[in-house]
C-alpha cells in the first residue's frame, strides 16, 4: 500500500513537471513580444525601453536558462509577477483560491449528496412517480448549459425576488467564510446550484443504475433475510456496494470542475481562479496562466491519488491484493 502510494506520488510529480514544460514551451514558442505588449503604446516610441524590459524579465536569455530560473523560483514558492497588474502571482492566487474552493467544494457536496440520494430514491421505487420525476430532472439538468441556468437563477431569485421585495439572494460577489459564514453561504447558494445541477443529474442516473443492479444481488437478499430495517438494507448494504463506481465518477468530475467554475464565476461575478484565468488569457498574462495551469495539474493529480486511496478504503479486495 505504501509502495503503491509512493509510486503514485512519483508519477504525479512527473505529470506536473511535464505539464510545466509543455505550458512553458507553448508560451515561449508563441509569436509575440511580451515587453512590447506590456509597454503598449510606449513601445513604439521607445525601442530602448523595450530592450530594458526584455532584459529585466530575463526574456533575452536562452529558453533553458529561463526555464531553470522558472523552476528555481517555483521551488521557492515564487511564481513571478503578473505582467498585467504587476502583483506577485502567489498573492493573486491566494486571493482567488478561497473563492473557487468555496464554490467548488460546496457545489461538489451538493451534487454528490443530492444526486446520490435522488438516485437511491428512484432505484428503490423503480417506475414510480418519484423515479420518473427524477429521470426527467436528470434529463433537463444534463441538457441545460451552465450559463443559461446561472442566468435563469439570477433572473428569478435575484431580479424577480428583488422586485417582489425579497432581497435574500445577492446578485453576485463574495464574502469570505471567516468574515461572515452566513453571508458567505448566502452569496454562494445560487452559484453552487448552478455548478451542481448538471453534475447532479449525472449522479442521479449513475446511482440509480448502480443501485438497481446492487439491490438485485444475493447479499442484499441476505440482508433482508436477516430482518434488517429497509433503510439499513438500502444504505448500509446496497449503497455501500454501489459507492465504488460513484467515487470513480467523482474522480473524473473533480478534474473538470475548474472548467465549470470558469463559467459560474463569470455569471456571478466571483473573482475566483476561473475568472482570473479568463482575464489572464485575454491579457496574455503568462505567469498567471502558467500558475493556474500548474495549480490545476497539481489539483487533478492529488484528486486522483485521493480517489485511488478511497478505492482501497472502500473495497477490501483492492486493499489486500
Amino acid at each position, binding site marked *: 500500500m505504501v509502495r503503491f502510494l509512493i509510486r503514485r506520488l512519483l508519477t504525479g510529480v512527473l505529470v506536473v513537471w511535464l505539464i510545466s514544460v509543455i505550458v512553458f514551451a507553448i508560451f515561449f514558442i508563441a509569436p509575440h513580444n511580451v515587453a512590447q505588449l506590456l509597454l503598449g503604446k510606449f513601445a513604439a516610441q521607445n525601442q530602448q525601453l523595450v530592450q530594458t524590459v526584455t532584459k529585466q524579465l530575463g526574456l533575452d536569455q536562452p529558453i533553458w536558462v529561463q526555464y531553470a530560473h522558472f523552476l528555481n523560483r517555483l521551488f521557492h514558492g515564487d511564481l513571478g509577477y503578473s505582467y498585467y497588474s504587476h502583483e506577485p502571482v502567489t498573492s493573486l492566487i491566494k486571493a482567488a483560491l478561497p473563492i473557487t474552493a468555496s464554490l467548488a467544494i460546496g457545489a461538489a457536496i451538493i451534487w454528490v449528496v443530492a444526486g446520490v440520494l435522488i438516485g437511491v430514491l428512484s432505484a428503490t421505487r423503480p417506475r414510480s412517480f418519484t423515479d420518473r420525476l427524477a429521470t426527467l430532472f436528470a434529463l433537463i439538468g444534463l441538457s441545460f448549459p451552465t450559463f443559461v441556468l446561472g442566468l435563469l437563477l439570477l433572473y428569478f431569485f435575484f431580479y424577480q425576488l428583488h422586485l417582489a421585495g425579497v432581497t435574500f439572494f445577492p446578485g453576485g460577489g463574495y464574502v469570505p467564510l471567516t468574515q461572515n459564514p452566513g453571508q458567505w453561504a448566502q452569496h454562494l447558494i445560487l452559484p453552487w446550484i448552478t455548478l451542481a445541477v448538471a453534475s447532479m443529474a449525472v449522479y442521479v442516473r449513475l446511482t440509480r443504475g448502480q443501485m438497481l443492479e446492487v439491490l438485485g*444481488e444475493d447479499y442484499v437478499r441476505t440482508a*433482508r*433475510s436477516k*430482518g*434488517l*430495517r429497509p433503510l*439499513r438494507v438500502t444504505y448500509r*448494504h446496497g449503497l*455501500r456496494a454501489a459507492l465504488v463506481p460513484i467515487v470513480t465518477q467523482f474522480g473524473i468530475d473533480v478534474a473538470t470542475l475548474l472548467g465549470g467554475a470558469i463559467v459560474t464565476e463569470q455569471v456571478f461575478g466571483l473573482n475566483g481562479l476561473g475568472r482570473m484565468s479568463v482575464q489572464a488569457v485575454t491579457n496574455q498574462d503568462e505567469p498567471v496562466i502558467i500558475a493556474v495551469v500548474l495549480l490545476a495539474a497539481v489539483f487533478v493529480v492529488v484528486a486522483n491519488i485521493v480517489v485511488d486511496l478511497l478505492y482501497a478504503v472502500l473495497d477490501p479486495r483492492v486493499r489486500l491484493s
Partner: protein
Amino acid sequence: MALLEVRDLTVEFPTTDGLVKAVRGVSFEVDSGETLGIVGESGSGKTVCTLSLIGLAGGGRRGGQALFRGQDLLTMSADELRAVRGAGIAAIFQDPLSSLHPLYRVGWQIVEMIRSHEDVSKAVARKRAIDLLGLVGIPQPARRVDDYPHQFSGGMRQRAMIAMALALNPDLVIADEPTTALDATVQAQVIDLMVRLQKEFHSGLIMITHDLGVVADIADRVLVMYAGKAVETAELDDVFYHPHHPYTKGLLESIPGASGTRGKLRPIPGSPPSLIRLPSGCSFHPRCRYVMDRCLTDEPPLMDVGAAHRSACWLPATLSGLAEGTEAQRMKVAEAARSEDTPVAEGES
C-alpha cells in the same frame, strides 16, 4: 399444530409475457426438529415456494395461508415479518460467495444480525459470533472473525452463512440448495454439519435441492415439486423405494447410483413446461411414459397412495415402487387407458 403450516400457497408474477404461475397451490408442514426436503428440477418453484413465505422471492402475488407459530406470514405487517426474519426463520442460500456482503467482515455481518434483533453490546455480540464460527468448524475463529468473505474458502463461507443463520437460534431454517455451489467433498461436510446442528438446535429445516443424494442424507419427509405443484409427498424411504409419481420415479432413474436404476440412467425426456402456458390436465403428461387419456384433460389432485404418502397421478394407488413387476403393470394399465393417437413421451435409452 406444526411449527409451519402452509396451506394452498400460490405465487404469481405478472410479467410482460404473461402471468407466471410459479407456485400453484402447494401445502406442506414442518415441525421442530424435522427436516423437509423439497426436490424438483430447476424452475419447478422450490425457491419461490419457500422464500416467498418471508417475502424474499422478488414480489409476486401470494395467495393461501402460511401459519408460522400460529401466525399467518402472508398477512402480517412488514414490521412483524421483519421480526420473524432472521430470528424466527433464517435462510441459507445457494452461493455463499455472492450471499455474503463482499465489503464487510464476516464477523461484522453476524454481529449485525444479532444486534438488529437483540439489545446486546458489540463486545457480547462479537463474542457470540466467534463462538458460532467455532461451532460451525471454522479454525481459529477469534482470528477469522475479522476476515472478509473473499479470504474464506467456499466451504468456509457456507459454514459462516450457517453460523449467521443460527445466530439467533431460529425455529426454522430454510436452506436453498446450500451445497450446490460447493465441491463434492465439501458438500458432504456441510451436510454433516447441518445434520449435527439441527439435532443440537432442534429447529425445523427445509432443505431445498435437486440432488436426491442430499435429500437421502438429511430429510425426514420429502416434497417433490413439478411446475409449481407438489406432485408427491412421502416419508424419505417411500420416496426412494416406493415412488408413485412417474416424475419422482424419473428423478430417481436419472441420478447415478440411486436405488432402482441398476446401472442404467434414464433421463426424463423433454423439458419443464412454461409456467405461463401450462399443458392441459396433468402438467407432466407431455413427458410421461404412462400417459393416459384422462391425463390430458383432468388435473390429478394429491391423493393418498399409502400411509403419509400422497401422489398427484391417475395411476392406481397400489402401483408404487420400482420393482419390475410393478413397472410392467404400470405399462399395461397406461396402455389400456390410452387411445391410438395419444402421444407418449419416449426418452432415448
